[in-house]
């Protein structure tokens, strides 16, 4: 038997049909929650503390990563009441720079690995990619699943890769990116979530940010429900990270509402919920300033990184 068959046999892939219209309606209903005033301020601060501040450009430079780290620590000059973000998320070659810039803070350094974003490399290369990032000091590894294998129905191979990457992570936390925009249906999002969790993911993550659609509320809801079922069956709390396309403060608050009502307050912590973003924090900062000053804000007053 090939390793992937062994892994496949260990999986418990029960059918969990997902009704798309039902999911949309639940999302719409959750989005009618009205978050105002103190609740809004508190929610936005909580959401900021959950951000994985991200730069994943081919053009990233050490200087840009250092600026990003500064922003991660001091979200907005002149406000002392803001939390630090949870992590910065960079390519493996930038991990060392980020670690240095964040020294002495609780901010984690996450690295994308496994031939991010496409995953179109041999497993050996992906494992080496992972080991390199961990050796450079990454606290967290954001891996991508092999969508080709998944869509072909080779779930054993998908699972096996996750198992081996997890092993390569050592103590680093593993976030498994499903790249939901390439999976096509919510049923497949559910299936990929189940495979990832059963194969050792500490977090499941929607997207690379390189493909649209990314973290739609529908996809997030399906993944949260998968986490809930996994917890019910195993007692293990898996984390969730929507990333990509979370456009504004309202969308971020809607994510918190979803987590609160689907998984419960226990998940409202950066150790179990993250928001992958690069531009989003500024909109949240503008909303916070608006709540503080009563005046609608303009983007020119907020640093881009």
């Amino acid at each position: 038997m090939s390793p992937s068959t062994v892994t496949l046999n260990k999986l418990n892939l029960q059918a969990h049909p997902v009704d798309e219209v039902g999911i949309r309606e639940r999302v719409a209903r959750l989005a009618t929650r009205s978050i105002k005033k103190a609740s809004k301020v508190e929610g936005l601060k909580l959401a900021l503390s959950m951000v994985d501040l991200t730069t994943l450009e081919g053009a990233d430079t050490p200087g840009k990563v250092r600026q990003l780290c500064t922003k991660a620590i001091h979200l907005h000059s002149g406000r002392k009441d803001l939390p630090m973000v949870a992590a910065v998320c960079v390519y493996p070659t930038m991990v060392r720079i980020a670690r240095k810039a964040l020294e002495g803070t609780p901010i984690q350094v996450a690295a994308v690995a496994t031939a991010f974003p496409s995953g179109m490399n041999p497993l050996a290369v992906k494992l080496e990619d992972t080991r390199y990032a961990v050796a450079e000091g990454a606290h967290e590894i954001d891996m991508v699943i092999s969508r080709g294998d998944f869509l072909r129905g080779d779930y054993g191979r998908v699972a096996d890769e996750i198992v081996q990457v997890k092993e390569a992570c050592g103590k680093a936390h593993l976030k498994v990116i499903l790249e939901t925009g390439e999976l096509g249906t919510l049923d497949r999002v559910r299936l990929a979530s189940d495979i990832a969790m059963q194969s050792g993911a500490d977090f499941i993550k929607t997207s690379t940010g390189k493909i649209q659609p990314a973290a739609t509320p529908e996809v997030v809801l399906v993944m949260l429900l998968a986490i809930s079922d996994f917890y019910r069956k195993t007692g293990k709390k898996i984390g969730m990270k929507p990333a990509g396309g979370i456009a504004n403060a309202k969308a971020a608050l809607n994510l918190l509402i979803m987590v609160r009502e689907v998984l419960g307050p226990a998940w409202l912590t950066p150790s179990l919920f993250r928001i992958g973003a690069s531009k989003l924090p500024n909109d949240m900062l503008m909303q916070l300033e608006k709540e503080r000053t009563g005046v609608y804000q303009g983007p020119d007053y907020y640093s881009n990184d």
Partner: protein
Amino acid sequence: MTESKISSKGSDWGYAPAPESADHFKLKEQYGLFLGGKFVPAGSGKRFATINPANEKTLAQVADAGEKDVDRAVKAARLAYDKVWRKMSGRERGKYLYRIARIIQERARELAVVESMDGGKPIRESRDVDIPLAAAHFFYHAGWADKLGYAFPGKSVGPIGVAGQIIPWNFPLLMVAWKVAPALACGNTVVLKPAETTPLTALLFSEICQEAGLPDGVFNCITGAGSTGAALVRHPGLDKVAFTGSTDVGKAIQKSLAGKATKLTLELGGKAANIIFEDAAIDQAVEGIINGIFFNQGHVCCAGSRLLVQESVEEEVVEKLKARMEHLIVGDPLDKNTDIGAINSKAQCERIQDYLKVGQEEGAELFQTKCAVPDKGYWIRPSFFTKVAQSHRIVQEEIFGPVLAIQSFRTLNEALEKANNTPYGLSGGVWTDKGAKIFKVTRGIKAGVIWANTFNKFDPASPFGGYKESGYGREGGRHGLRPYVELS
């Protein structure tokens, strides 16, 4: 490698109160009857108070129509029918309905707030469901007014005459729309009696008719209690009676009309089964159970008040249902985050509490959520019973509140047998991912509206109405025109 230093404690972040403002309009201190296009006091001068069930405060005084007022209303409707409405072309009638639809949209926020204050339903529902649907009903029927010949091929279509319509308190304005829109579209004139606990939006609707320039007497509104309704039904000047309410009252109306040529349609009670199979999308099914029984405090004739869940997933469904129910926010109907508002009246609240007692006495096990409820007003926490038998009263009788009875089943046939083992036949639900099974079950349930993989959906184009003791006649869609036309 550094261990995570991030806090792993969950936040207790929650939602602050988010009340909808009620300062953009002003209710009058008192409302008269709407007769022949004008608001007039009751002949007796009698009035009664309509109160806000969420705080027990009086909202307005409303005229109490007596027998003579009913007679004036029917005569006004007759006059309008003979002199104006029956002679008007369908196209012109339709244009009035379009106007009404538009004004409802324009006054939507006011209507939603008043609906929630008068009836206790959460603003989220009155804003997103009741009022938009009411406008949609007028819009839909407006377009039928000049196309009735196409609805009944091979027949010539005419109006019936004067319709007396009696509506309940659970969807006050929406029921106005369900009743009045098809009646007027088909060329009938109307005397409407809204429920005594929720008369306000029907009275605002009367204002809307004035604003729309609807000819005097085409729509008349008489407020009062059961005795006013009885006087209306008794009136010899009616050609048609349409009633929505309890099965007992429906039967009494049929009896009282026995010797007359008056046509009758009835939309009555229900005790719908919501059937969950093991192969269903369970989380969406749980949401469907929630919508089925807790929508509008369970004050819904088609509520999914009996949950039939396949044995193999019973534990999972019940566990998930409990968890989901704990997130239902009970409280101020005007708060935008409220999921379950106030019980419509003291009497109804007592009735539901009585059933909660009866259920436990019968040996069923009660679960209620732990949410806080306000001190003033009438409230029932979301509730369900397990360990119930088919013979229990809580399984057989319509509770009309946020109370669910849960039973399990093993086979499809057993599910159908339990679902149909009731004198009612208004609605039903089925949840399964298997297409063939959906059609087998939707065919097998003896009820007029079947929701497959969804529940409690309404649309003006979709016929609504029951089998058996849930009444007869349909409202909505092409079939909903039939009760308001004479075919020859």
